[in-house]
């Protein structure tokens, strides 16, 4: 499921593990940015929504840190 934050497209994929809990991975949707990494939580969650939201929050925080480094002028 794609999300967009500050114009940056983020793909979030969720997986149910053997313990019937959910994990999520994030990556940039834009081909030009796929070599850069976004952080994602390592934890597993009871629901797919929880895993998705945790991954989204981690991705936003990554992007915030990247934008702060270059500076909002």
């Amino acid at each position, binding site marked *: 499921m794609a999300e*967009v934050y500050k114009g940056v497209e983020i793909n979030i994929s969720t997986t149910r593990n053997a313990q019937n809990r959910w994990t999520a991975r994030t990556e940039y949707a834009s081909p030009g940015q796929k070599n850069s990494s976004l952080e994602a939580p390592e934890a597993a969650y009871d629901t797919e929504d929880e895993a998705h939201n945790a991954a989204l929050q981690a991705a936003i925080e990554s992007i915030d840190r990247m*934008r*702060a480094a270059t500076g909002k*002028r």
Partner: protein
Amino acid sequence: MAGKSISSLEDFKKSVESAGHKNLAGKAEVKANESAFSEMKAHIGGLYKGVTEVHSFEDENGSIFDCIPVNQQPSLKGASPAQAPDLPAMHKPSGPAGEAVGDRHPHEIAITFKEGKKDKHGNAMTCPAGHIPMRRITLEEMTRFESMRQFFQKSPHGEGRPPKTKGNPTAVLSETSAPAVAATHRWAHAYQNVNNLGGHSYLNVWDPAIGANQIFSLSQHWYVGGSGAGLQTAECGWQVYPGKYNTKLPVFFIYWTADDYNKTGCYNLDCSAFVQTNHSVTIGGTLSPSSVYGGAQYEIQLSYYLYQGNWWLYWGGGAASNAIGYYPTSLYKGGAMASHASEIDYGGETVGTTSFPPMGSGHFASEGWTKACYQRDITYFPTGGGQVNASLTPSVAWPKCYTATVTLYATPWFETEFFGGPGGSC
């Protein structure tokens, strides 16, 4: 005619016209070189060309406001302003009912909070109908920045960029010089990726202290569209920014950019962009009172709403009479924000160099009501019409300095974000 101790606009314009860089150079706060100084003089000359005042007043922080005819403001220059609509009605909340709010009674600072007040010179602190209070932009204020570009930017020390075009009242940013120490931004906020025509919240007002090597601290709304160099925003809120406003008190501000804060954008009425229609709200003026830790809580209610080609800004309720004015979508040059925004965002931002100032109350979000800063009743206007509760995702990228939490409460708080922290090194 200006009241006593406030120079008339005509005298002010003459003083700007006759000012020389050598008269200011040497003062500790003057950072503009001679070239930047000339651009600043030209900018002020452009802003005030053909502008007359019926009276002026001084607010609590010493800012002068000139009551000028609506159609003389820089963004109209003779044209007539658009007519404000009422805001769309709130849809009945759907989904979970939300946590009980408990015994919370904040005080709203009304749009009329300066009506009936007089300044220390005895001048009325609002304007007559058909006029707007325009904060006087002075050389003293502008020359505290190294360049026009820094003056218009959301913070003064961004990345340098070669000069491209001459500065002018349309806020095309030009001359630049490398900052001594790079400033960076920190946020504790909450966002939602949703197509929208604006949104609403109540913003709890505080006065975080800005220390040495720190720039500003704020609480605001962002409505965002586009991406990359085409990222566009309409913004509003309060900020403490002594380097700009020469006060430690919170100030009501607006901001916009059409190109990710690169060449376009400015605060308030500092450039030709926002069209003010309201005669009593002082954009760039002091807000009072501020909230007290563990005590009385004060808040302002702000909304943006895109209607018939204009991003209208409201203070207080959704009646057309609460409209402050608008950003014409022509500012966005056919970009995303010309038709709608795709993200809503609420929370705090700070800028610092070697350390970061407190955000909100200076206390972390977990302290909650009366102790941490909040925005409540956060809603947005879907592109299909109406008004619905937001469903926000927080971002806490610097938890050592600041945190943010989002809770869905029952009426009248609904979607609420507590945020803030002490700042420091992070």
